[in-house]
């Protein structure tokens, strides 16, 4: 081999290394994504193609919306080394109050939703007070909250309160209106949104590169960006296809609940990664003493976190009430555990300081797909729980075992 070709090859290797590095930098994140893809493929085969039917996917989103909404708040709480055990009871209690307002007191459904959100914020203030001001560990405070609000929910709701407001019930069951008509078998709006999403993604990638260049940093190799864009086109394209062909003869497309979940996920991802508040949450979780010595008011951050969690619990409560069209005393039982499990499957560290919103969304989807896949296969729901428990153990073990060897 000539010298020239040798050096050429070396250059190639350096380039390859850089492309690889752009991906391995977030190895843990990509690991969970890989696991999700593997699980989807396995169940797609086991269910003989039923898993990826458009309406199954819509159902998956509708069924797991509450886990994602709660997990988005829970991940912030866990990053800051706290926990919230009360969210399940809050879903039951707030759902009960909203149902009561609409059914017994005939309050307008939008006003009832606003009232529900306000109650969520207030409960957040209540729990934040005990954790941040008084200094009671979050585990105790929210264990108290779990009992308090489950008790109140049971007293308030008695057996159950059916909700027959069609507008309200549409939140969880219906799709965005078919304003652009049907394009063949597809919902026009979904196609437009899908294309816009792809364009937005490409634009954001190139903007990121331009910004890196502007501040004098070397951006990721162009090839890595292209690979990312290619993957995004495939994934968004496939989802667009699925949603566009979902529903029935009269309606279909993007489920309303997906919009709500999507907005919350994007907003909280932005808060956690880009805002001063997000930085402080990570700082507190990684090293509380150093955060304190850096002038961060750790109690204030703790307080705000619980207010966020209260708000998100209220959103989950409304989503759940709409989905079930009825409030019952037992609604939301063990939801806190679903949310916590989604966090840990999604790569959140038990000891705090580490975790991301996209991570827990994937964690929630992993659990959701397993649930859905096994249900389709007709596995007993009790056994499904056992499977989910094993997956949780496995996910955390995969995270911890390499660290053990390092020591």
């Amino acid at each position, binding site marked *: 081999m000539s010298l020239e070709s040798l050096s050429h090859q070396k250059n190639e290797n350096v380039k390859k290394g850089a492309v690889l590095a752009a991906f391995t*930098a977030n190895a843990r994140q990509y690991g969970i994504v890989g696991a999700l893809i593997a699980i989807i493929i396995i169940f797609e085969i086991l269910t003989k193609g039923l898993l990826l039917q458009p309406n199954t996917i819509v159902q998956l989103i509708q069924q797991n919306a509450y886990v994602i909404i709660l997990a988005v708040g829970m991940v912030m709480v866990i990053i800051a080394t706290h926990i919230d055990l009360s969210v399940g009871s809050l879903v039951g209690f707030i759902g009960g109050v909203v149902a009561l307002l609409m059914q017994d007191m005939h309050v307008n459904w939008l006003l009832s939703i606003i009232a529900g959100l306000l109650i969520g914020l207030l409960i957040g203030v209540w729990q934040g007070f005990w954790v941040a001001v008084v200094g009671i560990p979050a585990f105790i405070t929210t264990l108290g909250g779990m009992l308090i609000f489950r008790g109140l929910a049971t007293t308030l709701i008695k057996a159950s309160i059916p909700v027959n407001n069609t507008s309200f019930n549409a939140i969880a069951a219906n799709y965005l209106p078919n304003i652009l008509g049907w394009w063949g078998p597809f919902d026009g709006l979904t196609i437009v949104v899908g294309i816009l999403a792809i364009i937005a993604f490409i634009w954001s990638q190139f903007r990121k590169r331009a*910004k890196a260049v*502007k*501040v*004098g*940093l070397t951006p990721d190799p162009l090839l890595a960006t292209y690979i990312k864009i290619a993957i995004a086109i495939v994934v968004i394209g496939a989802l667009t296809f699925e949603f566009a062909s979902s529903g029935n003869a009269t309606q279909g497309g993007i489920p309303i609940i997906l919009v709500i979940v999507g907005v919350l996920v994007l907003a909280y991802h932005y808060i956690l990664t*880009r*805002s*001063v*508040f997000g*930085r*402080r949450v*990570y*700082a507190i*979780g*990684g*090293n509380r*003493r*150093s*955060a*304190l*010595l*850096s*002038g*961060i*008011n750790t109690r204030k951050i703790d307080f705000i976190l619980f207010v966020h969690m209260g708000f998100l619990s209220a959103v989950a409560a409304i989503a759940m009430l709409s989905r079930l069209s009825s409030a019952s005393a037992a609604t939301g039982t063990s939801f806190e555990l679903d949310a916590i499990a989604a966090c840990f499957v999604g790569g959140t*560290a038990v000891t705090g*300081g*580490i975790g991301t919103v996209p991570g827990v969304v994937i964690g929630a989807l992993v659990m959701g797909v397993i649930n859905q896949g096994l249900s389709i296969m007709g596995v007993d729901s009790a056994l499904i729980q056992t499977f989910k428990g094993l997956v949780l153990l496995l996910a955390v073990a995969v995270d911890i075992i390499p660290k053990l060897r390092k020591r």
Partner: protein
Amino acid sequence: MSNSQLLLQMKNITKTFGPVKALNNVDLEITRGEIHAICGENGAGKSTLMNVLSGVYPYGSYSGAIIYEGKECRFKKIKDSEEQGIVVIQQELALTPYLSIAENIFLGNERQKYGIMDWEETRAAAIKVMQQVGLDEDPDTKIIDLGVGKQQLVEIAKALSKKVKLLVLDEPTAALNDDDSAHLLEIIRYLRDKQGVTSVIISHKLNEVKAIADNVTVIRDGATVGRMTNSKEHPLDLDELIHKMVGRELTNLYPERVPHISDEIFRVENWTVHHPVDHQRVIVDHANLYVRAGEIVGLAGLMGSGRTELAMSIFGCTYGSGISGKVYVRGKEVDTSTVKKAIEAGIAYVTEDRKGYGLNLLRNIRENATLSSLIKFAKYRIMDEAKERIAVEKYRKEFNIKTPNIEEQVSNLSGGNQQKVLLTKWVISNPDILILDEPTRGIDVGAKYEIYEIINQLANEGKAIIVISSELPELIGICDRIYTVSQGVITDDVPKSKFTQEYLMKGMTKEKEKVKKVGGL
């Protein structure tokens, strides 16, 4: 000296931690029935030597021989040495606060039959050893309800219950008041005379050493540098002891410094701090100090002198209780009661404990570097990452932080580079006064030099700098003026012309009652 008189002989002990030689061929001889003091600066290797003796560092992890009672011993764990009657009482007491005195005395050595506790025997045996140390308390009293002095006595009672022959006490009086210290020394003497217990005392309080020790071994930089005797006829010469402790050569490891000192910008008056839990105990006692712009001022004190506590209590009251006194920045009194207020007043404190109090090891360089000044890099509370990157990148180059890029997790950096990130964090907050607590602890020589250069440069930019350090040559090498601190009192304000290790060490070991308080100006 005949061999039968020798209780313990440690020969050629060498112990390394990675590339660092903590002990280098140390020799120690302890005679039966004596009180033997080990003296040396912080980091000289005293505690390491005792950890070798007790088996904390097991046989095989060091080289050299331990000959005890005429036999070579190979202790693998603490239990092995304790079985031979060697008990080491650590500076940080190892008692369980919510258990009783009696339970603590027999912890791990319970009075029991077939796994069932014999409480009567436990209490009776506890009372017996408690009497020997003059501890007049109910054996059922919980440790948390005792003062530190009495806790220390419980530790000794515990040692006695193990049939101790050689008692090692690491800084036993560091946390005690004068009465408790005197009582403790009395007990040690009593044990020697009545029970034949041999004691080894590690102490920074040289007058105490003079009062109690029969012999003294001096350790410096991991090596035995001398042995001195102390008796009525030949009392210990403290000047010689200090000379032995610090008498190393000063090398030219420090950058050239031409100070440009102007007006006073920082002043602390009558600063008094009490212990965070034991509100009676005074940790910092009416401290007065001032620093001028462009000046590097040292704070020289041994462990437990209150130097870090002084700094942290000024910086947002992050240490202590019952804090009183005044802080002035540029002649105006400022409120430093929270960290935020202290930062706003222009003060920065760079902690001595990089990993515990300084950095978030889970995050990258950029996020650590801006943590104390996030608002500066934000618009409507949203971070402007480009602005942030430019600022951190600037310091990465200026401070020569060795890393591929600023997105690297700080846990992957070497100690020296971590220290530079910590410095960056506080330089970015743009303070007028920088308090650097042990800025070169645990980092290699090359990085040390770079840190000194950074300190120099910051002073030349007109900042007032306070450096806290245990290493006297370092303070002498970089400071323009040095305050010595002993037992919470600023004992001297030493100008550059009087910088010698001996002179400084005298100020650092001054006993409280003899201390003449030094004013600010």
